[in-house]
C-alpha cells in the first residue's frame, strides 16, 4: 500500500473513523494501530509479517534480559544476540545473494569457474528501516540510555507503526515508545500541519515521477546523449530521489500528526548544503544520526586519530545499507572520501579563513562545489554498475554537443533546475513559516485543495517510492 494510491486513501479513511470515534481508550488504540499496521504491511506480502513481529518480539525480550543481567559481560552477550538476529536477518534477506555473486565473480577473475546457487529470496519491504529501529532499542538499553519498556504489544505496535514502517524515518525507541505508551490527541493546529505536510509530500512525489523521465532516459542511454542531456538526467535524478524520499517522509510525518504522533524531521533543504558534512546533517537525518550514534561513535568517533577510518567505514556501511550492490558501496565510499577531504581541508590554515568567511561569493562557491560533488555521488547511486557510472561521469565532463541542441533540451534542463529550486523553497517555507499560513484559514485550505488537485491530476499511483527497495 503506497501513500498516494486510492487503496491507501480508503484504508486511512476507515482507519481514522475507528481511531477517532470507536477506539477511544489507550489499549484499544494500540491494538488498532498494531492490527492496521500489519494489514498495511501484509498488503505487500503477508508472509513477511511473522518476520517483522519476530524481530520485534526478540528485541523486546532481549532488552529485558540486558536490563536483568547483573554483569557487563552478560549485558554484552545479550546485545550480541540482538545484533546477530537483526543483522542476520539483513544479511540473509538483503546481502546473501550479493555476497555469493561477488565471491563467484572474484573466483572467476582468479581463473576458477565456480557455480553457486543464489537464494533469490524476495526482499521484505522496509527491512532496513525496522531492523535498525529495533536495534536502536537494545543498544540504548545496553548503554543505559533508556530503561526497557513494559508492554510487548506497544513495542511491536511502535515498531510496525504504519506511517513510518516501510521507508522511515528510522525512529528511535526512546522517541516513539513513550508516545505509544500514552497516545495523545492531536491539536487542530498540529492536524493542519499534518494536512500541509501530506500535500507537500504528494506534490514532491508527483514532481519526482515526472523528473524520472529525463533521469531514466539519461541513465539508460548514456552513450548516445549529449553532455547537456546527461547533466539534465543527473540533475533530474537528484530532484527525483529528493522529491520521492522526502515526499514520502513528509507524508509519513503528516499522517502521524493526524494520529497524535510526532515523528522527527528527516530532511532539511539538503541541496542548500555548503559542505558534504553539512549535506549529511540535512539528508536522511534519521539514518545519518543513527549511523553517527550507533556506528561512528561505537568505532571510536573522533578519538585516537581514527576519524578518517571511522568516517570512511561509517559512510561505506551507510552506502551498503541502501542496497546490496557495488554501486551503493562506491556511493558510500565517495561520500566517505569527500567528507574526509573536507575535514582535512578544514584543518589547513589556508582554508580556515575561507571556511569561516561570510561573503556571498564564497558561500556560493562552497555551495556549488558541494552540489557538484553530491551530483557526482548520485551517478554511482543510480547507475546500473560501476562501469556505467564511470562512463556517465566521463560524459558529464566532455565538452561536446551541447551547443548543437535546440531549445527543447535547454528547456528541460531549465525546468529541472527550477523544479528542484521550487521544492527547496517550498520545504524552506514549511520549516520556517508554515504556521503563518496555517493560521490563515481560507488561504490554507486553498493551498491544500489546489495542491491535492494537482497531484490527483497528474500523480501516478503506480510509481513506487525509490526507498521501498531498501
Amino acid at each position, binding site marked *: *500500500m503506497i501513500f498516494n*494510491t*486510492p*487503496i491507501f*486513501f480508503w484504508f*486511512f*479513511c476507515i482507519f*481514522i*473513523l475507528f481511531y*477517532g*470515534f470507536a477506539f*477511544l*481508550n*489507550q489499549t484499544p488504540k494500540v491494538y488498532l494501530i498494531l492490527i492496521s499496521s500489519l494489514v498495511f504491511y501484509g*498488503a505487500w506480502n503477508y508472509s513477511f509479517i511473522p518476520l517483522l513481529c519476530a524481530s520485534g518480539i526478540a528485541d523486546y525480550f532481549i532488552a529485558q534480559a540486558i536490563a536483568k543481567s547483573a554483569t557487563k559481560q552478560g549485558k554484552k552477550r545479550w546485545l550480541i544476540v540482538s545484533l546477530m538476529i537483526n543483522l542476520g536477518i539483513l544479511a540473509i534477506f538483503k546481502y546473501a545473494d550479493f555476497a555469493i555473486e561477488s565471491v563467484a565473480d572474484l573466483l572467476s577473475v582468479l581463473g576458477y569457474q565456480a557455480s553457486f546457487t543464489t537464494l533469490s529470496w524476495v526482499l521484505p519491504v522496509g527491512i532496513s528501516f525496522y531492523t535498525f529501529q529495533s536495534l536502536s532499542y537494545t543498544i540504548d538499553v545496553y548503554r543505559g540510555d533508556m530503561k526497557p519498556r513494559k508492554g510487548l504489544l506497544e513495542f511491536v505496535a511502535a515498531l510496525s507503526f504504519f506511517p513510518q514502517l516501510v521507508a522511515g524515518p528510522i525512529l*528511535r525507541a*526512546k522517541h516513539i515508545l*513513550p*508516545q505509544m*505508551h*500514552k*497516545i*495523545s*490527541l*492531536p491539536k*487542530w*493546529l*498540529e*492536524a*493542519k*500541519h*499534518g*494536512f500541509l505536510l501530506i500535500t507537500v509530500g504528494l506534490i514532491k512525489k508527483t514532481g519526482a*515521477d*515526472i523528473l524520472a*523521465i*529525463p533521469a531514466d532516459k539519461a541513465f539508460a542511454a548514456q552513450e548516445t546523449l549529449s553532455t547537456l542531456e546527461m547533466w539534465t538526467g543527473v540533475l533530474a535524478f537528484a530532484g527525483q530521489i529528493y522529491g520521492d524520499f522526502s515526499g514520502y517522509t513528509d507524508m509519513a*510525518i503528516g499522517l502521524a*500528526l493526524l494520529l497524535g504522533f*510526532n515523528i*522527527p*524531521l528527516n530532511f*532539511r533543504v539538503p541541496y542548500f548544503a555548503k559542505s558534504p558534512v553539512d549535506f549529511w*546533517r540535512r539528508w536522511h*537525518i534519521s539514518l545519518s*544520526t543513527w549511523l553517527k550514534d550507533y556506528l561512528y561513535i561505537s568505532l571510536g568517533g573522533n578519538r585516537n586519530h581514527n576519524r578518517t577510518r571511522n568516517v570512511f567505514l561509517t559512510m561505506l556501511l551507510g552506502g551498503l545499507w541502501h542496497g546490496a550492490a557495488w554501486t551503493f558501496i562506491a556511493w558510500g565510499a565517495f561520500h566517505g572520501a569527500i567528507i574526509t577531504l573536507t575535514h582535512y581541508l578544514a584543518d589547513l590554515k589556508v582554508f580556515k579563513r575561507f571556511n569561516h568567511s561570510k561573503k556571498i561569493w564564497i558561500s556560493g562557491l562552497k555551495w556549488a562545489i558541494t552540489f557538484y560533488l553530491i551530483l557526482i555521488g548520485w551517478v554511482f547511486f543510480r547507475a546500473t554498475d560501476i562501469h556505467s557510472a564511470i562512463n556517465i561521469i566521463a560524459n558529464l565532463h566532455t565538452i561536446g554537443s551541447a551547443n548543437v541542441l535546440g531549445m*527543447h533540451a535547454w528547456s*528541460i534542463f531549465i525546468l529541472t533546475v527550477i523544479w528542484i529550486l521550487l521544492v527547496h523553497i517550498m520545504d524552506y517555507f514549511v*520549516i520556517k513559516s*508554515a504556521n503563518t499560513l496555517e493560521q490563515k484559514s481560507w488561504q490554507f*485550505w486553498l493551498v*491544500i*485543495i489546489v495542491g*491535492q*488537485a494537482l497531484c*490527483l*491530476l*497528474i500523480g*501516478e*499511483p503506480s510509481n513506487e517510492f525509490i526507498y521501498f527497495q531498501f
Partner: protein
Amino acid sequence: MNSSTSNFNESNVSKNTECLPLNEQQASAPRPSKDKRVYIKITLAIALTMMAAMGLVRVLLDSNDVNKQGILGRVLQAQAALPQIIAEPNELVMFYGSSMTRAGFSPRKFDHDLKAIGKDITSFNFGFGGLNPYYQEIFSRRIAEQFIEKDRKLKLAFIEFNPFQTTTTRWNRAQFTVDSFITMLANDSELWQILTDDLSRGIQLFTIKYIRNHISAEMITSYYAREIFPPQREQVFTDDEATVAARQSLAQELNQLFEQEYPDYDGSNWYYPWQGGGTIPAERSAHTLTVFDKYYAVSQTAARMKNDRLSRIRSADIEALHFEPVLLESFINMVKNFQGFSDQVEVVMLPKNSRYIHYSPAAQKRLAQAIKQIEKATGIKIKNHQDIEEVNADMFRDTTHLSRYRGDIAYTEFLFKKYAAQL
C-alpha cells in the same frame, strides 16, 4: 507531544533532529483522550478537501474535453447505436477491427452492391483507431451482451486480424491507457472480478471510474509528458516546398467542399447514416473527386510514405513483428465472443502496402506461427488479404491505411465478390 510540529521552525528542527528530545514526561502530558471534536474536524477536512480537489480536477478535464466521450467518442457512439443496429429489419454484417478497418471498408458501398443483386443486407463499420485487441476484446463483450439479450445474430462478422496492432511494441506503448480504457469499456461486474483478484488494482479502477471520471493520472501525465518530451518523429525524408504548399491548399479546399456537400453532418465520429463508414464517391461531385485525385498526387509522395514506414516501425514493429502473447490471447477471445452471436465469422487480414512494408524472414515465421495459434484456438481459417491483386500500392494513404474512394472501394468490391454468394 513535545513541541507542536504545526509550529515547526528552525529551533524545533534542531531539537527534533539532533537529540530526539521527547521524553516520557513530555509525552504523557495530560490530554483529553476521548474528545472526538478534533477527529470530527479531521474527518470532515479529509472528505471536503478531497471532494473539492476532485471537483477542481473534473472541471479542468471537462473544460479540455479530456473525458470518456472525448477520448473514446467513436467507440461509445458505436456502442450507443447498438440497439438501433439490432432493431434493423435486414440481415446484419459487421466488420470489426482497427483503424485499418475504419479506412478500408465501406458499408454503404457493400450494401449497395448486394442490393443490386437482390440481397437486402445492412452492414456496419466497427473499425476503431487506438484500440488494440485487448480493448477490442472487452468491447466485443459489450456488443455480444446486447445481441444475445435481444436474441439477434449477425449474418456475417468480419474480424480483422491486424498484426501491426498485436505486437509487444504496440502493447507497451498503450500501457498508459490501460486503466482508463478498462473503466470505459468494462462493466461493473468485470471490475468487481478484478477487485476480488487484486484488491489494490480493483479499488484503483473503481476510483478511476467513479471518482476520476474514467481518466487515470497516467493518461494525463502521458499527455503532458508528450508535450514536454515529444516522442521521436521520423521525418527523415522531405518533400519540396511546392508539394507541401499544394498539399495544404488542397486539404483546405477538401474541407470546404465537405462542409458544402454535407451540411447535415453532425460531427459524430461514428455516424449512423454512414453506418460507421466514411463518405462514398457516388455522393460526391465530379469536381470534388478531381480535387481528391490532385490531393492524393501530392500527399502519397515517396517521402511521406518512407517517413510513415519508419514511424510505424518504431511505434508498432511492423516489419519484425514480435507478437505480444496477451494481445494474441485477447484476439482469440474476441473471435470466440463473436462466434457466440454470429452465423458466420471470418477472420481477415487487410491489404498492406507492400511497396513499403517488407517482413523480415523471422517476422514471416512469427506471423505464420501467430496465424496458426489463432486458427487452432478458434477453428477458423484466417483469410490473408495482405497482398491481393485487387488492391495496389497507389491505393494507400500511408503504409498501412487504404485511401478513401480508392483503396476502400477496391477492397469492399473484393469482399463483395468473395462473400456475396454466401449472404
